[in-house]
């Protein structure tokens, strides 16, 4: 039997004009005749988080009354055979799939025997999952010379390594991590914890149904060919917990190629610069941040921003750009913040200096007893047979900030302290959490700030808590 797969068209549908496989006298072993109905349309829904693409293709097939064999093959592609399903879009009440056969000698092929009550054409839809088609987002931001506004562009890049060329396909991108396990559990009527123990065939089948439940059929207005000289629009729609990007018109992405399209553009997006020290997030250093928001006030906010690389350039004022940073950002919902860490600014010096250290409130424990005595002046003898059991460490720090930039800067500092601590300072500090203190300062251009605080840490038996409290005090 001749295989209908072709080099560039990996998946193919053939109508075999021999009688039903079961009809013995007409069954040909080696000589076949088949027709190959073209795809009428194809839609790709790419779930990037799962390396999973739902392909929905329609074809027109002529049927005659009785049993009609259909052959579907996908040599050299990454289609999941267990996921292939056939649906009749027209004459559904007069067409039935009698059986599906996976021949043992042709691994990437199946046959459907379709019982038809009609003679004529019907539209069919074949759906399946394939892997190897992925998409990613990336962003390009160019700050103006004054660093007050950004020209921000978002892009989506679709890469096709599936082994198949989907010509003129409508492309839909699912933004967000889909939770198919939940859908699978729902469909299988089992707890989510048991999803992993499902047989592969069952899992794949349920996964397909789950994914299909999430996606509606293509919306009529989403397809169509745009004017040739216009950049394509990417239509963004919310769907349940997800966002679907539908690329305007259709795309052909040959196997092995990638294609990048602009998904949005924001002109004059305002942003703020802040210097931050947050050791838990950025290491123990002061980093320069671009802070903007994915909201209307910032001339954004039309779509969540999918995970992707954010590349930042700046107009260097010399008819050129400076490259600032490339940073991976996480999914940013509408109205949420976008924080870009540009790293350390060599024009802003940041030093934490320990100025002095001392101990007081010393307590000793008399050996063999539960008796504690506080140590008084230097000459007081408490008991020879006693050991230091509690004390307070007092350390005075100066957080020095030198601003050599031409603009005033805003500095925000977070410091975490273990144990039972008291943060004593005249700074307007507040608790970020139970063991972290946050304080801020503004430093004028060319100026130096010395932010002093004393850290009092109760040690040994003096420690009664595991938190930091803030106490106003002038530290010299």
């Amino acid at each position: 039997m001749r295989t209908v797969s072709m080099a560039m068209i990996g998946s193919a549908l053939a109508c075999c004009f021999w009688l039903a496989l079961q009809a013995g006298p007409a069954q040909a072993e080696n000589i076949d005749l088949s027709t190959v109905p073209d795809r009428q349309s194809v839609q790709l829904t790419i779930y990037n988080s799962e390396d999973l693409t739902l392909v929905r293709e329609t074809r027109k097939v002529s049927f005659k009354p009785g049993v009609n064999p259909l052959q579907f093959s996908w040599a050299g592609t990454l289609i999941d055979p267990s996921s292939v399903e056939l649906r009749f879009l027209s004459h559904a009440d007069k067409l039935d799939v009698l059986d599906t056969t996976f021949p043992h000698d042709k691994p990437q092929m199946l046959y459907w025997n379709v019982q038809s009550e009609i003679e004529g054409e019907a539209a069919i839809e074949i759906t399946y999952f394939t892997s190897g088609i992925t998409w990613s987002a990336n962003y390009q931001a160019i700050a103006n010379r004054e660093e007050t506004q950004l020209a921000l562009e978002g892009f989506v890049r679709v890469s096709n390594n599936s082994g198949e060329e989907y010509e003129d396909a409508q492309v839909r991108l699912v933004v967000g991590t889909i939770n198919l396990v939940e859908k699978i559990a729902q469909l299988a009527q089992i707890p989510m914890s048991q999803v992993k123990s499902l047989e592969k065939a069952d899992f794949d089948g349920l996964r397909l149904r789950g994914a299909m439940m999430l996606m509606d059929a293509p919306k009529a207005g989403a397809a169509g060919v745009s004017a040739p000289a216009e950049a394509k629009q990417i239509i963004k729609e919310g769907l349940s917990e997800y966002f679907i990007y539908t690329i305007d018109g259709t795309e052909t992405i040959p196997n092995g190629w990638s294609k990048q399209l602009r998904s949005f553009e924001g002109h004059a997006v305002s942003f703020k610069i802040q210097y931050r020290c947050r050791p838990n997030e950025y290491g123990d250093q002061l980093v320069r941040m671009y802070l903007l928001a994915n909201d209307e006030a910032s001339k954004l906010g039309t779509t969540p921003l999918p995970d992707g690389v954010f590349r930042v350039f700046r107009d260097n004022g010399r008819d050129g750009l400076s490259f600032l940073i490339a940073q991976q950002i996480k999914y940013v919902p509408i109205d949420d913040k976008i924080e870009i860490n540009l790293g350390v600014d060599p024009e802003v010096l940041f030093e934490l200096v320990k100025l002095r250290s001392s101990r007081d409130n010393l307590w000793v424990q008399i050996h063999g007893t539960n008796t504690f005595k506080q140590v008084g002046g230097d000459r007081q003898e408490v008991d020879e047979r006693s050991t230091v059991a509690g004390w307070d460490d007092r350390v005075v720090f100066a957080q020095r900030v030198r601003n050599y930039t031409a603009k005033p800067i805003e500095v925000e500092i977070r410091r975490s302290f273990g144990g039972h601590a008291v943060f004593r300072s005249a700074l307007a500090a507040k608790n970020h959490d139970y063991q972290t203190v946050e304080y801020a300062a503004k430093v004028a251009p060319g100026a130096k700030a010395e932010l002093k605080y004393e850290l009092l840490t109760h040690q040994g038996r003096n420690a009664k808590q595991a938190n930091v409290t803030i106490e106003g005090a002038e530290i010299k």
Partner: protein
Amino acid sequence: MRRLAVAICLSAGVLAVGWPADALARIKLITLPVRERVEIQLDNPHATLVEEERIVPLVEGVNQVDFSWANTQIDPQTIVFRVLGPAAEKKADDKQPDDKQQADEKEGAEAGPLDVKVLSVSYPPNEAALVWQVSSSGSGAARVRISYLLGNLNKSFNYRAVAARDESTLTLSQYIRLQNLANEAFGSTGLWAGFGPRFSKPIGINQTKEMLIAKYEKVPVKKTYTANPQAFGYLDQPQNKLRIPMHYVLKNDRQNKMGEAALEAGKVRIFQEDGRGSTAFLGEDWGRFTPRDDEMRLYLGVAQDIVVKRTIDKNVVRRVAGNLHHREVVLKYEIENFKDQPAKLDVVENLHYVRGEVQGDTGRDVEWELGKETTFAGGPDKEQSAYDQAVFHVDLPARTADGKAKKFVYKLHVILKNEW
């Protein structure tokens, strides 16, 4: 040898918005726009940005612009394609445009006859190339700028320091060195390090180019001798003789004729005028990144003519309560200057180090105060001392005319408090 190429396929009439149909065509006509201007931005410490301008002929409709490279480390993810405007808007020269000119250009680009847009970018498999689909409202030439990060085009900084005969001043020259291992030649190219002047130079493949970026004339310099057992150890421990390193210390501030920018890290070759119109090579050191208002210390070697013997003269425990005690330590320094010139010696003691010598490390901060037996005049230098470090300065006269060096004895008395 050119490794980067931009090709314009004249196929606009044939293309649909979808896939470039002529990707598979065997017969192509392409134009190869040459570089009009190249700028290499060296201001990022970790990456080199190349910006090139080309004049691209476009026809009305959709044009395919191929950009390919071979054997170069272009990061394809960083390639930015910007249409600056019609080609006639700006002449390719090396002049820096002022703000007004830039604004005019922008305006010209917006109001220009050509409306040029990038529709998509495609990346062919297994090729160092990409294809822009660019739409143009009419036929004509557009000036475009292509920017990308390029690997193996590396920069470094180095310095030449020439001290005056009397070592009171020093002339510091700062050079930027650009090494082109990127496998791509650049003709007359604008170069900018993020500070200092902008250069315009050609850079060939595998070439290294060194350019003077700043010269600081007659900068006041301090020559220091330092006794710091914790940092520099002993020259002869059985005899308690400390290693005394010598440094030139420059302060990167306006008062000292510097302070225009931070000094980047780099190798410093140090010379001294020999008084006969030439210079003598004193050695070299790695200069650390030196922000404005900070000091750059250049190591000159170990002084042989200044001898410092350090001994622990006293180590007494004063019990407070139970195992809680104070500890009194007296360090004695016997100092001789065998040089013909006077010298200034910095005596630095790290109190953690001292406690480690007499007691061992407790892991706790050291709490200390100066005792009455201290004989250093003027007390510790407040600016240079820290919570665990005391710094004193000692002026040492030159040896006497009869060749004898006077021995000076100083004592440092510290009380280590609340130890156990």
